[in-house]
């Protein structure tokens, strides 16, 4: 992996983040009436606070460069403004991020392992029973909005069978004798949303991995490996899988931005107290400060994940030079 490649990846990521900050500035400051729109709707804003905020954001100064410079400087210091209730947006985000990381991180991990395994096997045994069933189910899962899957699971396993609680992250008002009981309670609440996120993602990953494996299997080096008399399992593990994995890594990373939408809605279905429910609540009350913060946070996270994927790709694929 050449230094040039690394530098370019970093430059692209930096460019994207700059664009995101610019979009946030344009949408929330430069649009006609934006600052007033954000502030005037808030019943908790006193005239003093209004004046104070105006002075701090420099609304009396021209948009560019004064307001823009201030905005960028504030964002760089993680000063993302205030919510309707007057709390700093950054604090609220910091509080809500962990449930999302837990739900979404675990879901991604499960989906990557299961989805890639299913896809690889389907592609390897193309036309076999696992492939036909797996591919059909993957396509169906891919066509199902996450929240719909969540509502179905909620109906069957929580309302119908009563195996799992219907909402939240832990039982409200309950006190636990020891941490293990508390953990079990959280896990019971986590089960259904986690299943939803994983199932939703497995379909996508299996489809991508399957076509990648099929593509790889038609390469000359696979024919060569077979001609050398290598056993099937060895051809798959040593020759086909490593090469088929590479494009999948990039696709998984690129899909992250798309997948965020699903995560938001799953949280809403199960009332999971993460960034998704925060977004939808903020949307209902048009709390633009929060929406802006969520957009910034999620975008930067996705950009960094993509950067990491690109670097991993460069590390493993010797063909990547420029």
């Amino acid at each position, binding site marked *: 992996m050449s230094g040039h490649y690394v530098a370019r990846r970093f430059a*692209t990521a930096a*460019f*994207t983040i700059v*664009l*995101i900050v610019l*979009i946030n500035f344009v*949408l929330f400051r430069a*649009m*006609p*009436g934006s600052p007033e*729109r954000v502030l005037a709707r808030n019943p908790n804003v006193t005239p003093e606070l209004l004046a104070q905020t105006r002075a701090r954001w420099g609304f009396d100064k021209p948009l560019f460069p004064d307001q823009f410079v201030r905005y960028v400087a504030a964002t760089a210091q993680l000063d993302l403004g205030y919510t309707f209730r007057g709390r700093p947006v950054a604090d609220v985000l910091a509080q809500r991020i962990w449930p999302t990381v837990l739900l979404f991180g675990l879901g991604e991990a499960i989906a990557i392992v299961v989805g890639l395994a299913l896809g690889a096997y389907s592609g390897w045994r193309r036309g076999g029973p696992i492939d036909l069933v797996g591919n059909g189910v993957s*396509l*169906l899962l*891919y*066509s*199902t*909005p996450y*929240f*719909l899957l969540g*509502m*179905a699971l*909620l*109906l069957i396993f*929580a*309302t*119908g069978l009563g195996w799992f609680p*219907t*909402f939240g992250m832990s039982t409200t008002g309950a006190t636990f004798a020891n941490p293990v009981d508390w953990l079990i309670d959280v896990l019971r609440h986590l089960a259904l949303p986690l299943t939803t996120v994983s199932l939703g993602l497995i379909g996508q990953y299996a489809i991508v991995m399957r076509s990648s494996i*099929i*593509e790889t299997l*038609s390469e000359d080096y696979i024919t060569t490996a077979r001609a050398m008399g290598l056993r099937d399992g060895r051809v798959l593990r040593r020759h086909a899988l490593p090469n088929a994995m590479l494009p999948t890594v990039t696709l998984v990373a*690129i899909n*992250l*931005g*798309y997948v*965020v*939408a*699903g995560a*938001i*809605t799953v949280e*809403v*279905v199960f009332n999971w107290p993460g960034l998704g429910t925060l*977004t*939808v609540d903020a*949307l*209902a009350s*048009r709390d*633009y400060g929060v*929406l*802006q913060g*969520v*957009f910034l946070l*999620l*975008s930067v996270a*996705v*950009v960094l994940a*993509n950067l990491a994927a690109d670097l991993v790709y460069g590390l493993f694929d010797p063909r990547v030079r420029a």
Partner: protein
Amino acid sequence: MSASVTTPDAFGDVPARRRLASSGDLFRRLLRRPDGLIGVVILVTFGLLAVGPDLLVGPLQTAVTAVGPRLSPPSAAFPLGTDELGRSLVNLTAHATRISMVIGLLATAITVGIGALLGIVSGYVGGRTDAAIMRVADFFLVIPTFVLAIILTSIIRDLAGSGAREVFGIRFGLIAIVVVIGITSWSSTARIIRSQTLSLKERAFVDRARAVGAGNLHIMRRHILPNVINLIVANAVLVFAGAVLTETTLSFVGLGDPFQPSWGQLLDASREVGAPSLGAWWYFVPPGLCIVVVVFAFTLVGGALDDLLNPKRRQRR
């Protein structure tokens, strides 16, 4: 497409003869595949339902015209049960089909329009224009466009108001969704069309057109566009699936219009009354199934078209 053959234009007939595959031929080959046939049949069915829900189930029921009991399970009088206002789910789902399909269609038109235009220009012009357009395309490909779409939709509504104005029979608040889907999802179309344009512009017929004095605009419009039109159609089918999903999701987080319910809006309403926790499956299963079936059908057709148009993959099957 026959227009280019009949026009007296000196270059008009060149792309017609050089066209890589005719659209009629493509459609016939699509129908010969099981996945293509099943997909097309499903889509035609939903298309017909979307054209005339009034003829089949009467006008959209409102809180005033609702006659049924509240949130009652399926019965002889209400085959799919009723919602919390006593409206028939048959009526609601049929009308939601129209709203969802029209929004999907409009959003697809905008998405594919922007994508094809930028893709052709990017690929044909090349250089800095190309680099700039592709940078922006990559940006939209990577960032969580859904969150951006949420913000854009509510800002557009704040600025323009969501009054009772209608475009194509769709209320303005929903048109905002259409525009936002178009703005945020054109990049994959642009990438696909660009790479096809890159290879097309090296062909002899483009050189020939240029040699006899055709301008860049003329070449893009009369020589490149006709040759990527099949690719655009195939991509549009997949874009439609995505547009339906995005509209559904936007409606589900509260950006739908209760006066013009789409499938997503029905799902949001059912969640708000707590249908899954109340065991009221009939409220969200009909619109939910419609979404899954329609998106599935579009994915089947899109995948089949992709196979037919991609010679590399066709060989390997």
